[in-house]
């Protein structure tokens, strides 16, 4: 980063980046905890996830306020402006991710007595591992302004979509096999959707990192997994 005549401006930009990364760390933890709570049906951990959400929201407000103040006071240009705008965008994406994690935790609490030991939760764990790895890499890419890594995350979303589609079909077969599975499987269906959305927001952050460094938006269609096949499987598995 080039030094500015006004030192305080540098400090402000650095402070913004630092808060974004710290918020990212919080959200990473929230997602990991939410998925652990789901797999292990750990109600206490689910409560921890829900309790962490106000902290994430407060950080987002703080970042927004600081970014707006920076724009008002310093009238940033070029890369400084992009960094300030990016911090607004990334804080927004991270806040959404935190909400999805909270929603998973709420479903763990809600499914309570309906929950059943289905092997499909291993599939959810698999998908969450992919998403967490993408989030980790994209936050590292942001901290180091690493465009190559950001692009790798942007392209890697395909695999997450593919697992999501597969989970969708598997969950439907469980529901067709035994109607008593329906309540819990519906919760799992929404959890899978939440995890998939978190993955989408990770690619949004990747786009923003690209924008900070290159100064132009990332053009072109992201590679997509197969379009979600909404047809029901032909017959339940034996």
């Amino acid at each position, binding site marked *: 980063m080039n030094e500015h005549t006004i030192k305080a401006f540098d400090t402000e930009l650095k402070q913004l980046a630092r808060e974004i990364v*710290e918020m990212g*760390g919080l959200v990473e933890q929230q997602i990991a905890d939410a998925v652990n709570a789901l797999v292990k049906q750990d109600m206490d951990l689910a409560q921890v996830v829900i309790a962490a959400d106000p902290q994430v929201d407060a950080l987002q407000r703080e970042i927004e306020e600081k970014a707006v103040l920076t724009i008002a006071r310093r009238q940033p240009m070029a890369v400084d402006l992009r960094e300030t705008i990016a911090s607004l965008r990334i804080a927004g994406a991270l806040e959404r991710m935190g909400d999805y994690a909270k929603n998973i935790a709420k479903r763990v609490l809600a499914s309570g007595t309906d929950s059943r030991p289905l092997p499909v939760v291993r599939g959810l764990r*698999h998908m969450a591992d992919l998403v967490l790895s993408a989030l980790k890499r994209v*936050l590292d890419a942001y901290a*180091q302004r690493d465009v190559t890594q950001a692009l790798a995350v942007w392209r890697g979303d395909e695999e997450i979509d593919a697992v999501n589609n*597969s989970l969708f079909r598997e969950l439907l077969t469980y529901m067709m096999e035994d109607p008593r599975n329906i309540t819990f499987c519906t919760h799992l269906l929404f959890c899978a959707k939440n995890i998939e959305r978190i993955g989408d927001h990770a690619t949004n952050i990747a786009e923003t990192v690209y924008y900070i460094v290159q100064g132009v938006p990332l053009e072109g269609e992201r590679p997509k997994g197969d379009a979600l*096949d909404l047809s029901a499987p032909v017959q339940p598995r034996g």
Partner: protein
Amino acid sequence: MSAAINRLLEHRWAIVAVALVSCAFILVGGLSPLLGIIGFAVICAAMTVPRQQTLTAGLAASQQPAREPWPPLQSIMDALPDAVVAIDPASVVVAVNAAARKIAPALRQGEPISLGLRMPALLAAVRRTVATGKADRAEFSERSGAERWYEVHVVPAVLSPSSSQSPTHFLLTFHDQTQHRRIEQMRADFVANASHELRTPLAALSGFIDTLRGAAANDAPARERFLPIMQMQTERMARLIDDLLSLSRIELREHIAPDTPVDLLPVIREVIDSLQPLAKERGVEVLLVLPPQPLKARGDRDELIRVFENLVENAVKYGASGKRVEIQLETASGKGPNGGEVKISVRDFGPGIAPEHLPRLTERFYRVDVEQSRAVGGTGLGLALVKHILNRHGGRLSIESTLGAGSTFTVALPLTRPAH
């Protein structure tokens, strides 16, 4: 002298302003001209003092020295086997030793620690210690590749000779808890998996035993029918326990990369030789396409044999209808330490796998078709084993398949430079 004049020139507008203000005081404010001129001269003299000096003089006692790595600190830290990071009271990294660089490659001197290590538990411990001046600790996990766990101690330290009471630095020491955590996890996973997966065959077995001792006690044809099924179930349980144990063993050291170079060609040949009887039995021909030069990868020979055994055995068992299995070795440019990687693909021409199953195949106990998997004696753990072994080797598995045309399982391993 010329430097002083230069500085005066730099501040020429300020001097003009001061002169104007002085004149105003003399004319309007009734200041005596002599005092006005003396004041003007003093301000001009102050401007000739180099700016940097005035700054450092003011800050010397507080901030500046803490940011600069104190020369002996780095060498002491580098001599320690544990990972150590030194930060200043503003959480800015002052020094990082080699072991810590491995944990957090993104840590940079002069940057806030959170840009390299953002785990909330760790940052909270740092904040607590900075605020209270009392040592603190935290635990966190880090997941790049195989998940690792660390315990971190944050301790205040007075490292700068100038100040004596308040801590000038904070030292973070990291202790690797991975082995300990993995053993704990292995125990839990093993109990959960074993109890879940062994229950079905055990229930079947005890059902048959009950029947043979009760209703079918003297029924010879029933006995003839039941005993082979019972044997199959016990064999399945034995295999399951074997696979679960191997999986646990591999998971225990998944975070430690193997370092002996292994020549891959003999490994593949050995696997093919050992599976030849099975292939003959199913009427499958195994073809091998080899490059001329030897290919070496850093690895654990026994584990790599396990990988290819699983892949080739799957191809022979599930792709038997295609009548042939092709194994191909080739080099490709990749992200290995020497830039290259070796790709080993195992291709069958069987019925293929539907696309919705492809991304899920490496999950433990995931089966495309439960009945078929049971019939060929699968435990549902083969590809999970493959994935974990490749994870440890820094490699990866990719699967392509077309329904009706067959499947290709490709292993990519980072290549080591062949010895000249």
